[in-house]
């Protein structure tokens, strides 16, 4: 039987893919790195402090102040063979310290009590939201749109980094390095993510997968 790849090797391959995706689309010289926390690996900009709130510049146009923070917490799944994203954060802000935050997408697998594994927090306001939040305020803490956790799906179909990069380009917040190649790079990266998710879903429910193959053959 082939030896299982180590968490170190899998994590380094993972971060190489992420760095490649970022640097071939809308970023320059981003080097996310891995740090080993014994059984858990971090992917972050500062491997000696993965909790540091620091982003990297998006877009080559220096006039645009837009910064992205990307952090992953990785481990092996329960078979000890496959890499699993335990938790991740993608955040967008107007400054590298991420103080002037615009929104973040937060994922943590296997939440209990029906809570969504992935959600979006938008730092903003509108009259409609203010009215609703005032009407429904129950506790002493003020509610605001930025404190709300808008559900965005579960483990398999959560928002991806590819989705976020597409959003930035299609909404014209930044230009890709290469218009023609951008779509194909993102599409291939997303397809790889989907393949991994499909394989994971099959591993966890072989009977349904077998039945589906039978039905569709």
């Amino acid at each position, binding site marked *: 039987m082939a030896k299982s790849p180590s968490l*170190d090797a899998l*994590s*380094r391959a993972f*971060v*190489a893919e992420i*760095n*490649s995706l970022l*640097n*071939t689309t809308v970023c*320059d*010289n*981003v*080097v996310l*790195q*891995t*740090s*080993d*926390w*014994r*059984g*858990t*690996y*971090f992917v972050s900009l500062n*491997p*000696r*402090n*993965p*909790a*540091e*709130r620091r982003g990297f510049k998006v877009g080559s146009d220096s006039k645009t102040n837009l910064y992205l*923070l990307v*952090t992953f*917490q990785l481990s092996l799944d329960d078979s000890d063979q496959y890499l699993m994203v335990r*938790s991740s*954060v993608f*955040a967008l802000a107007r400054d590298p310290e*991420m103080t002037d*935050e615009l929104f*973040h997408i*937060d994922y*943590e697998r296997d*939440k*209990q*009590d029906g*809570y*969504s*594994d992935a*959600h979006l*927090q938008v730092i903003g306001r509108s009259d409609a939201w203010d009215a609703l939040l005032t009407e429904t305020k129950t506790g002493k803490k003020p509610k605001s749109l930025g*404190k709300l*956790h808008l559900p965005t799906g579960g483990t398999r179909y959560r928002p991806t980094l590819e989705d976020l990069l597409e959003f930035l380009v299609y909404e014209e917040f930044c230009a890709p*390095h*290469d218009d023609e190649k951008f779509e194909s790079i993102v599409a291939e990266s997303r397809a790889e993510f989907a393949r991994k998710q499909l394989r994971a879903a099959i591993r966890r429910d072989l009977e349904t997968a077998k039945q589906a193959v039978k039905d569709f053959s």
Partner: protein
Amino acid sequence: MTAVHATDPTTRMDLHERRSVRDMAIQSSGFTIDELRQQARFNEFETLQAKLSWMVVSAFERSSGEES
């Protein structure tokens, strides 16, 4: 467009260093560890920093459990 960078070697820290990073993460969150734990229970972190800090705290707890 820039060249794709090779991955730097994985950073490894000893228990003392990881504990120090954990303590710093709790301090920078503006919450107590119990408050972070409560927010983590429902994955409803009050702030971006709280979420980032919890990622470090939870990793530390898993790693120190293995070492104890």
